[in-house]
């Protein structure tokens, strides 16, 4: 069964907070759920499907459905593939709706790593003795930033990609973030400022990294008949794809991501090509994440990413492929260290024509959102979503 046209995104809400020391994670989930339902013109009583991932406290749906008072659920799903979970949740919600298991699904994400003082990118993690890779990798000082840096170093070695190329990705995000009053980093930066910022994990500089922020977001996915009865512009799910990429016995190729597979699946289901996409939300935990995913999704050939992102090609109104017009994780927000939710939300804004006027893509009818969750250089999940305005 194809999921094309089987469900619509009818509600989307991004929490405006970037630092929430006085709120609990569960409370943030409630606030984004309420916001998304209000956006859709629905109420809690309409929700019969619920989706959350590892950021949700307790056993996910058990704690959260109870806390949120979701007493009419006929379908739940707590798939956790890191920051890409929420893109997969949209696909899973569409599948559940197509199968008649629910009609209106709520997806929530929230967290407060900033208030908790997490050294998300560079901090050492404790070993979980039940995770088989931990004893072989944690003693080696495995970190998030280090894992992505290993990919960047290899990409530079094989394809001649430069730090200046990567910097253009941050420059584009910062050009967009200056128009977002909620963005953590609103000041436009230059290529020179990025490459002269302190080194975090060679070859990634501080400004190659995303922000650490509190906050969250939520989405409402509904049956198309319901979507058309609501007052909001109709955003339809057109293509979906997922994949997991690991080392598979010690044979990692760091030059590509699972986007190669999830993207191909989503484009096949949607029946469109990268050239048809008017706007793209691309997961941007680091600049290198964007570059590798753009290649794997087919926006340019493998190894050509550096050339593709140069000279403002990702800047709305300037380049060929406007990306992350909210400022993305690099400048705006990376709630719970999981950026997939905000990727979908900004794509929905673009398709509704509700992005900031300075970054709105004219007549944006087809958009893509893509996420990577976990560690790009070790093991990660990928999920791709193609959406269209009806």
């Amino acid at each position, binding site marked *: 069964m194809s999921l094309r046209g089987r469900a619509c995104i009818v509600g989307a809400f991004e929490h405006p907070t970037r630092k929430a020391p006085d709120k609990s994670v569960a409370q943030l989930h409630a606030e984004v759920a309420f916001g998304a339902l209000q956006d859709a013109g629905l109420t809690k009583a309409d929700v019969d499907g619920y989706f959350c991932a590892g950021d949700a406290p307790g056993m996910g749906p058990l704690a959260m459905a109870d806390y949120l008072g979701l007493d009419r659920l006929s379908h739940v799903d707590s798939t956790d593939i890191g920051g890409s979970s929420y893109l997969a949740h949209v696909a899973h919600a569409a599948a559940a709706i197509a199968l008649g298991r629910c009609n209106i699904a709520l997806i929530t994400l929230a967290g407060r790593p900033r208030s908790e003082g997490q050294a998300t990118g560079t901090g*050492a993690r404790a*070993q979980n003795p039940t995770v088989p*890779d931990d004893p*072989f990798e944690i003693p*080696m*000082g495995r970190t998030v930033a280090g894992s992505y840096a290993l990919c960047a170093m290899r990409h530079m070695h094989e394809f001649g990609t430069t730090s200046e190329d990567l910097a253009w990705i941050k420059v584009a995000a910062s050009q967009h973030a200056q128009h977002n009053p909620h963005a953590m980093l609103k000041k436009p930066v230059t290529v020179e400022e990025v490459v002269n910022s302190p080194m975090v994990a060679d070859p990634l500089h501080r400004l190659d990294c995303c922000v650490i922020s509190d906050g969250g977001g939520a989405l409402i996915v509904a049956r198309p008949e319901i979507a058309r009865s609501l007052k909001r512009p109709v955003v339809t799910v057109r293509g979906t794809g997922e994949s997991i990429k690991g080392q598979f016995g*010690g044979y990692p190729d760091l030059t590509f991501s699972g986007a190669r597979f999830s993207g191909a699946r989503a484009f096949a289901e949607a029946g469109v090509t990268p050239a048809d996409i008017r706007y793209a939300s691309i997961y941007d935990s680091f600049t290198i994440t964007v570059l590798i995913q753009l290649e794997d999704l087919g926006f340019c050939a493998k190894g050509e990413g550096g050339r593709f992102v140069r000279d403002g090609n990702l800047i709305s109104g300037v380049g060929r492929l406007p990306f992350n017009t909210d400022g993305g994780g690099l400048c705006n927000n990376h709630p719970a260290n999981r950026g997939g939710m905000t990727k979908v939300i900004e794509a929905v804004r673009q398709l509704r024509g509700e992005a900031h006027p300075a970054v709105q893509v004219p007549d944006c009818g087809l958009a893509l959102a893509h996420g990577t969750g976990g560690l790009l*250089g070790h093991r990660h999940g990928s999920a791709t979503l193609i959406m269209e305005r009806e």
Partner: protein
Amino acid sequence: MSERIIAAPVIDPSTQSFWDAAREGRLMLGLCRDTGRHFFYPRGASPFTLSPNVELVPASGFGTIYSYTVMRVAEPYACAYVELAEGPRIFTNIVDCAFEDIRIGMKVRVVFKPTRDAEGAAGAPVPMFAPA
């Protein structure tokens, strides 16, 4: 270079023999008997066939750097993937070498470095790599 404390690996019955060999200075790899391919990290099932027809075999200990990074933290260290002569690329550290001398393609050999657990007791040593 300042000495950083390397965390002791948590050992379970399925990985005990790998770490026992490490204490004797020997790097071991998984071998899938059905395909003849080596794998890392070791486990009781082949990642190629899922068959339990696997064994732990000695590695030569030689390889080349596939990629690396230097973590610029308070006590900097160099992470890398080293491609072993037997094939697997393993996540490790490059040690006993100035950071600026590290290159992709550099030939390296295994050296075992001591570890400490949370209480400060010695753990099994871990395989890291130095210029060959």
